[in-house]
């Protein structure tokens, strides 16, 4: 649910990173935080356990600049990937405008990716949302690891909607901005089509 404030001339949109535990969602956000100019971003909030696993969410506000007189801002969120935290995961989806699914490319994580994607569809449904009505992109993360599934296989199994998908190595920043850029464009395009 994007918020357009005509009086203060602001647009706020919410983008959520979803995916299996230890897939690299937080790494994506942390890379964005480390690379964009401090004046265009807010504080990175991480509600994590002592072992650095996301407990509730990570949050990063990013200022896009002023478009046609409207200060445009994206709020990036990650969900906790661990199966146990589904109640929290469901909450973060509230009011979202765009979704990124960060898949772990390693062959032995394929089932986890499938489960997480299925879980995402179910959680969207509890908010009355359907994936085909949401700006959505995928990311094949951890392409630098030795035991990865081929991109074609991931695409065939996980990308049933045939949305843009980006190979990535989030720890090195590869594919991180490409992913964010695409989902941001889709969110703003959806906004202009909605009006």
């Amino acid at each position, binding site marked *: *649910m*994007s*918020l*357009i*404030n*005509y*009086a*203060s001339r602001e647009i*706020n949109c*919410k983008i959520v990173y979803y995916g299996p535990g230890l897939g690299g969602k937080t790494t994506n956000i942390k890379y964005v935080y480390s690379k*964009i100019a401090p004046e*265009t971003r*807010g*504080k990175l*909030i991480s*509600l994590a356990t002592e072992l650095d696993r996301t407990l*509730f*969410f990570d*949050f990063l*506000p*990013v200022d*896009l*600049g002023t*478009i*046609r*007189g*409207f200060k*445009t*801002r994206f*709020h990036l*969120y990650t969900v906790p990937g661990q199966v146990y935290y589904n*109640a*929290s995961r469901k*909450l*973060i989806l*509230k*009011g*979202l*405008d765009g979704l990124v699914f960060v898949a772990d490319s390693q062959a032995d994580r394929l089932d986890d990716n499938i489960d997480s994607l299925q879980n995402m569809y179910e959680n969207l449904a509890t*908010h009355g*949302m359907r994936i085909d*009505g*949401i*700006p959505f992109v995928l990311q094949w993360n951890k392409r630098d690891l030795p035991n990865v599934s081929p991109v074609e296989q991931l695409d065939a199994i996980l990308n049933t909607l045939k949305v843009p998908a980006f190979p990535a190595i989030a720890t090195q920043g590869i594919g991180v*901005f490409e992913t*964010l*850029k695409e989902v*941001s*464009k889709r969110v*703003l*395009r*959806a*906004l*202009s*089509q*909605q*009006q």
Partner: protein
Amino acid sequence: MQDSVSIFEDDYWAINQQLKYLLRSTGALIVLLIDKAGQVITSAGDLSRLDVSSFASLQAADVAATSQLATLIGEKEFSSLFHQGRRESIYVSLLNPNIILVVIFDDQATLGLVRIRVKTVSDQITKIFERIFAKLERRTVSAPAFDEEFALEAEAEIDNLFK
């Protein structure tokens, strides 16, 4: 995707007036109105010492988590929350499932007074939002700024930011 909420000048100022009244009549430090996605709609008071974006996102998450706790014990929702600090405290009221009113106050204000004034102001703000949602429903408002050209400009801006 859920439809966007658009707030236009007259409604915005009407809401602001209510928030200012709440601030004045209770002696509170800050009053914030945020949506369920954690975005600030408007505020009153001195925001200079508060990281507003972080605050709003955490507050929305707090409300969302507490609503789920309510469900777990068989309640529909907790319509208000109170966090007591040593010097400053937070009183939160759920105006409707989408809108959250937050009052930050210190010992210059009392919880009882905050609670009473929030009740009065909540009714007024709820009415304003009913008006906003009705307008959006009837689509009697137009949003001339968001057309194809806007999308193109936005894309250029995104390319620029993430170079």
